[in-house]
């Protein structure tokens, strides 16, 4: 599960543990061709790098480009290797280490199903309101909430839902973009 804090100026947002392991958000612009995700994922598993979360979607159908956001962790040397190895893949256009390059915004979307009746049901709705989560599906016994935000916010919401009948969670993983006017 992703645990990337709300975007903040560089150095603050990404935890550095005592053993020198850093967490980085890396954006990868790739040619949208068959097997490109397998190449990226295979590179991480083959070389023993860590994937905390990863998502991919086409962002420019005309140019045929997709963007992969991957959250990974490792020593600074490993992070450098990961970027160099990604850059080396033939269908990769650009690799950008958002964590290193400056302030950025990271967001995640989650769909959360809660089942229950009576007071618990009302309480879940009340909390959803506080978290600005929307109801996207409802039956007499259940809600599906949609929530976006930093992963921590979603973690907190899920925690609060647990005693209220939480039955299912689906999360996208972080998508991120640099603050300011410059593109990737």
């Amino acid at each position, binding site marked *: 599960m992703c645990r990337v804090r709300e975007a903040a100026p560089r150095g603050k947002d990404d935890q550095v543990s005592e053993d020198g392991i850093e967490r980085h958000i890396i954006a990868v612009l790739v040619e949208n061709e068959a097997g490109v995700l397998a190449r990226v994922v295979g590179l991480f598993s083959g070389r023993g790098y860590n994937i905390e979360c990863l998502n991919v979607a086409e962002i420019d159908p005309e140019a045929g480009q997709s963007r992969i956001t991957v959250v990974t962790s490792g020593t600074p040397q490993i992070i450098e290797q990961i970027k160099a190895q990604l850059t080396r893949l033939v*269908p990769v256009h650009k690799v950008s280490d958002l964590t290193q390059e400056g302030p950025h915004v990271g967001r995640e979307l989650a769909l959360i199903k809660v089942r229950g009746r009576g007071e618990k049901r009302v309480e879940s709705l009340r909390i959803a309101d506080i978290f600005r989560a929307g109801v996207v599906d409802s039956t007499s016994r259940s809600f599906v909430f949609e929530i976006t935000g930093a992963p921590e916010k979603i973690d907190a919401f899920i925690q609060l839902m647990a005693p209220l009948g939480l039955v299912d969670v689906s999360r996208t993983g972080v998508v991120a973009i640099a603050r300011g006017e410059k593109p990737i």
Partner: protein
Amino acid sequence: MALRVFLWARSLARWCKGTRAMAKGKLSGAEIVLKVLEEEKTEILFGYPGGAVLPLYDALFQQKAIRHILVRQEGGAIHAAEGYARSSNRVGVVLVTSGPGATNVVTGLTDALMDSVPIVCLTGQVPTHLIGNDAFQEADTTGITRPCTKHNYLVKDVDDLARVMRDAFYVARTGRPGPVVVDLPKDVLQAMARYTPPPAKSGAHLSYRPRMRADADAINRAVELIAGAKRPIFYSGGGVINSGPKASKLLAKFVGKTGYPITSTLMGLGAYPSRNKQFLGMLGMHGTFEANLSMYNCDVMVAVGARFDDRVTGKLSEFAPKAKKIHIDIDPSSINKNVMVEVPVIGDCATVLGQLIKRWGEVKAKPDAKALNKWWAQIAKWRARKCLSYEMNDDVIKPQYALERLQALTRGMDVYFSTEVGQHQMWAAQFLQFDKPNRWLTSGGLGTMGYGLPAAIGAQVAHPKSLVIDVAGEASLLMNMQEFSTAAQYRLPVKVFILNNQYMGMVRQWQELLYGGRYAESYMASLPDFVKLAETFHGTGLIAKKPSEVDDVIKEMIRTDDMVIADIRIDPLENCFPMIPSGAAHCDMLLGPADKAATPVSEEGMVLV
């Protein structure tokens, strides 16, 4: 009669169809593949036919521009293409069928990836509508080869075929070279499409544009560091050879200008003339005493196209502990991978060496002569240990002696050497000498036994008039000896010089030094009679059992016009020294049998390969 008319009408209809297609300028997928091969000036294909690639073989049959070398197993095809590519600085091209054809090349692809050999490997595939159905001879070739190629493609539309084929060649030879697979479904090979010649000036690749020229800033810092060195060393690798003959020339020029010592990796042998005084021999696990101690004690290290492999560095924490390191490499992922360096210089070896020489002239750099003299005096002391010396006797042939004689008797000839993998390979690296690049073909990164014979075949195809010698071990040779039949079919006069000790020598050596002499499965009983083996494959067999017979056998081997197997019966228990035990540092070398028990291998060392 009716049948005849019918057949006639059918063939007429076909002919019309054929001409119609031609009139429209359309070709079959198979013909398009051959067209692009011609564009790329491919002369030789190494391959083996099968159901899925029959359309390509049919098209090959009807043309004369490209010659096909039929191997005896696909694994032989790809090593032959590697030998061809490495000995000629061209792209090696392989053609195999789907399923087992493709899986049989996986070892060779990995070998080419590890040693950065430019290969385009065309694999057949079942028709697109059967992909994923577990069809006969179907394998997920792009899936299987993804981690062992530089890049791979599955062509699903004949209209993409020409572009993908051109792309494959570009990717294989550009930047750090490597193997590229193009998977070709049978229906794509049969489909018709318009063929358009390549654009006169092809644009830059969409995403793959490796950097050739280094930053001026990096060059300036490198020159400053090199010029100020007191105990410098150049450490060159296979990247110099991959960069082309110009890189080797510039390397020799720059090393000459500085007057500094130079050592080389296994893959880099030949980039710098080994007879030159400044050359310290190969470094690493079986490198020379002087090369390894110079690396350990240097204050500035200039790595040129080398990748700090574990066979070179030994114990990382004690690798050149006092040195500031400059690392020239075209592949940014090689930088700081195993060893952190002070000055990374990203670019092509030839271009960067040119930039360094230019800058060296501009700043009128002058090495510190006094410090350098002292350094050379120290190196001379290490050299005086004569770490490659061995004990001769009259009864048993020492492998070192056989190689010394082979070197002496082929000196000055137009000769290419390939090797298999093991003790003989290390002895060959220690005792053979190279004046030019591309003359030394060996499997360094992957260490593939069975590489040498097919690689020699590939080199012989590229250089029909040259002398090509595979320095082999008997165990490795048996892994691909079916290729003797290929050599026979094309009358390729390759010479196989077997250092026959009846053991997997390197395995036996490690078992002796590290596993209490328990020789588990490293002895091979029932070896073939290699003289008869040569004869059965239409060649000549020779044998030497005593040191006094070695010269005659070598001379006879060189003189013989056809394929030769020379079975040199060497001392079965000889070990390869010097040796850095795994997990040890450069300064902890074993120089000979007497050193054996001095430093027991550490526990960390035991888990290393």
